[in-house]
């Protein structure tokens, strides 16, 4: 399956948010979306995931999703979006309850995803009892439970402290590789982008256009610190002026 975003433009009333954005993401590929604050990255992800209707352009999937996928395009949210009145297991089960599954089958999927995300022993805990990192693990477990093809992730780890983030990213990379998952990965963290992505789409400030697409030629496992740092610097030099402008713009509002 491949996600095809074709010439998408969007406005919020008078506010021109993005112009003519096109990109493709195939299964098993991670596309990072970076750009200055407020340039429209979250809006883009909402459009891709069908939560917002684009003003112009189309979003389509090409090719059949793999068999058994309940929700090929699946979000992982920055604020986790867990139901606080449900236990960890029940939060994961929530997205399966409307699917045609036998109860035993549903339980098996929940147990399996919790095990894969290292949450088995927290199955009966409630979100408020968990640390931020654990909460986002629940968010990831919930996403995996519906057997997605491409994950839509809006700064999934930005609410976490640096150490937790590093640990979670390592686990996340393993999960992605093991499941041949694709992702559209929005981030402010250029290092994270250089570490995780196969390609990085750099957006301009609002109205966002694609400034450049950077291809990272080395496989993720083979990227050393120098490689990551070099790409991080290259990215920064691309967006620093615009980031500063965007900052000033925010200050002037």
């Amino acid at each position: 399956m491949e996600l095809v975003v074709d010439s998408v433009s969007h406005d919020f009333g008078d506010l021109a948010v993005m112009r003519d954005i096109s990109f493709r993401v195939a299964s098993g590929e991670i596309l990072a979306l970076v750009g200055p604050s407020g340039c429209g990255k979250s809006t883009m992800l909402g459009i891709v995931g069908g939560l917002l209707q684009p003003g112009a352009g189309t979003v389509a999937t090409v090719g059949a999703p793999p068999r058994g996928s309940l929700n090929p395009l699946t979000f992982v949210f920055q604020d986790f979006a867990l139901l606080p009145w449900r236990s960890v297991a029940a939060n994961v089960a929530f997205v399966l309850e409307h699917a045609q599954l036998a109860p035993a089958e549903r339980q098996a999927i929940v147990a399996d995803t919790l095990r894969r995300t290292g949450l088995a022993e927290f199955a009966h805990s409630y979100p408020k009892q968990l640390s931020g990192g654990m909460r986002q693990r629940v968010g990831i477990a919930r996403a995996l439970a519906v057997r997605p093809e491409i994950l839509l992730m809006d700064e999934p780890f930005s609410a976490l402290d640096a150490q937790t983030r590093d640990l979670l990213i390592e686990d996340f990379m393993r999960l992605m590789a093991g499941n041949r998952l694709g992702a559209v990965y929005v981030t402010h963290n250029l290092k994270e982008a250089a570490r995780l992505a196969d390609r990085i789409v750099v957006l301009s400030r609002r109205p966002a256009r694609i400034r450049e697409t950077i291809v990272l030629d080395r496989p993720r496992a083979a990227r050393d610190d120098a490689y990551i740092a070099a790409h991080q610097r290259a990215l920064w030099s691309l967006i620093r002026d615009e980031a500063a402008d965007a900052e000033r713009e925010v200050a002037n509002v």
Partner: protein
Amino acid sequence: MSDPASSVRFRGGGFAPASSRYSAWLAFAAVLVVWQGVCALGWVSPLFLPSPVRIVAALWHLAAGGEIWPHVWASLIRIVGGWAVGTVAGLAVGLAMGLFTVARATGMPMVSALFPIPKIALLPLLILWLGIGETSKIATIALGVFFPTVIAVYSGVDSVPRNLIRMAQSFEVPTAAIVWKVILPGAMPTILAGFRISAATALLLVVSAEMIGAETGLGAFILQAGSLMQTDQLLAGVTILSLFGLAVGRAISTLERRLLRWR
């Protein structure tokens, strides 16, 4: 030589409400003891303020003689009936206003306009419409309960985080399931807080309605005891009402503990 050490003075005390289980009971007992003492010393006429012991005795006589029970039942039926009708209607209208733009746009001005009317003022009109019997009293209570319930349910639904609804939508959860599994539980804390208010309103209105036009019910009983200067019976009636209030508060607290354990 080192500088002299001075320990940092603790200055973080106070303001943290520490609950003590016994202090409330102690204070309550103290008030009763003082009250009893004042009466025993003859500082006030028992006609104006009977002693706690006499109130309890009156309560005992009323209960044992069976005289009070028809009044208790009459009030209870009115409270429960009126509260149930008002709550069911309030839940339906509040939910509709929380969920649908049209219902909100039409309902909100109406509710804002009618909410401040003291509902007891409508009792004479309701008596004209529905007769002097039970229906007009139950309708008054139902009206009094309806408005705070609508507002509680509406604001509860409105306060459910948008991101949870978007999350559910992004997993293709059907709309009915979103209402049932996301919006209602999310609104539940506000709805239960609304129950507290509406239950208090029901109690207030039942007494008022019974004082205006009824032969039975605790309101009528208290009014009659007053006109006969039987202050001990009057206060026995008031005591029963306060027990009602306490019981309802307890019930709602239990409900909150059960339903809102996740908080």
